[in-house]
Each structure stands twice: as structure tokens, then as C-alpha cells.
């Protein structure tokens, strides 16, 4: 009765009938499958689920209101995380693991007399306590805000959105913005 190594490689015992072609084929096939599995794992490790969505058209943000940024272009997506036709404000994670998530947004200047703050946060699902960045706005210049965060996805279907807020006293546009995610660990 042939035996197997811990990795599943089959080898004959002295008591087995001699059949060299069948035995070497069995062994070669076992090693072949094992090495191919390693190649697949290695390739997968170097090809992480990644996506980036962006937009450049103005989106009006009312004063003192939390608004989710919307996106129009799926620049890259190798894991079906973006589905802008269904939800144009998010990336939805299609596998569990730890992701490096980045969002950034450009608040245009509008010359509002009141400057006050600009706010951006990455909101995961409907969660509270998201990573937040705040800035004092510029009156005559654009204000650009960027966030980077490591997020552990525990359930397929978790999603992330980029939430913005501005307190200039009147409506303000956001223009260029993007949201990206790339998996860094299982």
C-alpha cells in the first residue's frame, strides 16, 4: 500500500508491486499539484484586491451638513469593489482582510466671508467613530483634505464611504475627489 508524505506525495513501499511508470507518475503529479498551489498562493499574494473610484465634476455641499461624496469613474477595480451604477458613494469589500483605505477631496474656494472648517471622514458601514481629518478652510484658495486608514474587514459586504462637511456659512462645491482601497493582509 503506497504511503504519503505530510504534503501528500505518494511513494511505494517495498511490499508494493513494482510498477515504476505508474509510481513516478503518481509522485510527479502530486508534486505538480503542490507546487502549482504554491504558485497560485504566491501570485495571489502579489495581486491584492484593489480599487479606486474618482470624480471631478462639482458636487454641492450645503453648509453644516454631512454629505457623502459621490464618484463617477471607476479607474481600477480588480475585485468588483466598485459598483457606481448601484451605489456611487462607496467601495464594497468583496473579501475579508485588512485594507489600506485612502480618501481625498478638494473643496473649491467660494470666497464666502466665513471660512471655518472643512471636514472629511472615512465612514465604514454605518459605523461611528470613523477616522476624521479636519482643516481650517481657505477663503480664496481650494482646500484639499486627505485621509489614510487601515481597516479590518470582518464581513464580505462591508463598505466605506467618504463623508464631507463644510462650515463656510453657504454652499460650497467639492471638485476632484477619490476613494481607494487595497488589501494588505488576509
Amino acid at each position, binding site marked *: 500500500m503506497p504511503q504519503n508524505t505530510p504534503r501528500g506525495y505518494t511513494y511505494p513501499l517495498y511490499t508494493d508491486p513494482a510498477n*515504476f*511508470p505508474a509510481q*513516478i*507518475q503518481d*509522485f*510527479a*503529479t502530486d*508534486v*505538480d*499539484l503542490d*507546487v*502549482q498551489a*504554491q*504558485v497560485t498562493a*504566491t*501570485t495571489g499574494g*502579489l*495581486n*491584492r484586491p*484593489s480599487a*479606486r473610484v*474618482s470624480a*471631478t465634476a462639482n458636487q454641492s455641499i450645503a453648509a453644516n451638513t454631512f454629505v457623502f461624496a459621490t464618484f463617477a469613474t471607476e*479607474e*481600477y477595480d*480588480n475585485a468588483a469593489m466598485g459598483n457606481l451604477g448601484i451605489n456611487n458613494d462607496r467601495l464594497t469589500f468583496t473579501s475579508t482582510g485588512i485594507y*489600506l483605505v*485612502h480618501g*481625498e477631496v*478638494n473643496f473649491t474656494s467660494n470666497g464666502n466671508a466665513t*471660512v471655518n472648517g472643512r471636514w472629511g471622514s472615512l465612514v465604514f458601514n454605518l459605523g461611528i467613530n470613523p477616522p476624521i481629518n479636519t*482643516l*481650517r*478652510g*481657505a477663503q*480664496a*484658495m*481650494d*482646500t*484639499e*483634505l*486627505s485621509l*489614510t486608514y487601515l481597516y479590518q474587514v470582518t464581513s464580505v459586504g462591508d463598505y466605506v464611504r467618504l463623508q464631507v462637511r463644510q462650515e463656510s456659512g453657504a454652499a460650497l462645491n467639492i*471638485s*476632484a475627489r*477619490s476613494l*481607494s*482601497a*487595497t*488589501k*494588505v493582509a488576509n
Partner: protein
Amino acid sequence: MPAFTANRGYPYSVPTDPVDVPGALQALAEAIDTDVCALQAGVTGRPVARFRGTGTFPSASPTHPVNTPPAPYSDRIPFDTTDFNTANVTLGSAEPGQRLIFPEDPGFYFALATVYVPLLTAAATTLFMGLQIRRGDFTNPTSLVTAPRLGGCSHNTPVETHDRNVRVMSLGIGVFMNGTTDAFSVEWRADTSPDVSEYVIGERTITILKMTQS
């Protein structure tokens, strides 16, 4: 004539082959050995590179709008030192109008740029400081491409002594680069009142991680 396994092409004897157990085992062992060595050589960890600009760099202090600089390269900052590079990224010339960082292999990249911004020594008030990463064309460095802006961050309060005289601005982005023309362009600008001839910034870095193989 031996047959070969389906995936890795390892040779094995078939019943019609002449009986040559040592020869067949040697051929199989050598094929596995070569294949596993090649596989092992390919496991190098995630490709990563970091470039640094050393010394001070006098950035012009124009009043142009943030996203429409007078020339596509007018705010591009130079890098001159390679800290490490396992990602096949080419650091372009530090000359004005060049200053691009070119990933030669296509893939999705995460890039993190930092700039040390010291106090403005001139007698002026800083109204705005902006750090952006744009997509340049490595084969045509002075030309804008369709979607040049990849990400940005700004500070609208000046660096002061409460910052211990320096502020580090940082910006991360995730983006696909095509491996043929796409290059990172790191840009920094300031707006002051009144205008000053230059705002001298300090050391800057860009760290690039390759997240996919295509």
C-alpha cells in the same frame, strides 16, 4: 518518450519507455529543483521603493490657483536619493521640467509623499500650503495628461513656533499606473501675502508600494 505533468511540466516515464529508473528519477528531480528554485526567487516580498529629496529646495510662491498651475511642472519638487527600490521604479532627472518618478511595471500602487515645511523666513503671512500627487507622462514630462491630479492635501494655517518650527505634510494615494507612460509627480506650493520670491522647504520623500502585478 516521457510524459509531462499538467501544470508544471515535470517529466515522468510511461510504460512504453525503456526501463531507466535512475535516469527518470534524475530528470524528474532536476525539473522539480529548477522549478522550485525559480518559484523561491520570485518570492521577494511586496515590491517597494522610497526616494528622498535632500537639502532645501526653494519653491516659488505663486498666487496661481491650486489646480491650474501656469505650467504642469511648475510646482514639481525634485528627488535625488534612492533609499531602496525593489519595485523597478525609475527616478527621473531632478532638473526642472523633469522630476518624475516612473513605475516601469503596470499595477495598482499605493504612494505616500511627505514634505518637511519649515517656518517661512520672509516677512509675509502664509495663506495656503498644498501638497499634491499628479500623474505625469514620463515620455513627455512637460505635458499634462488627461487626469493629472491624483490626490492632494493642504494646510491653511502657517507653520509657526508652536509647530516646533516645522510641519510635515503627508499625502497618500492608491492608483493604477500603466507601466508605459504614467509617472508620479509630487508637487508643493504656497501662497503668501505679500508674495515672496520663494518658500524654502526641507527634506521630502515618496514611498511607493506595488499592490498588484498588472
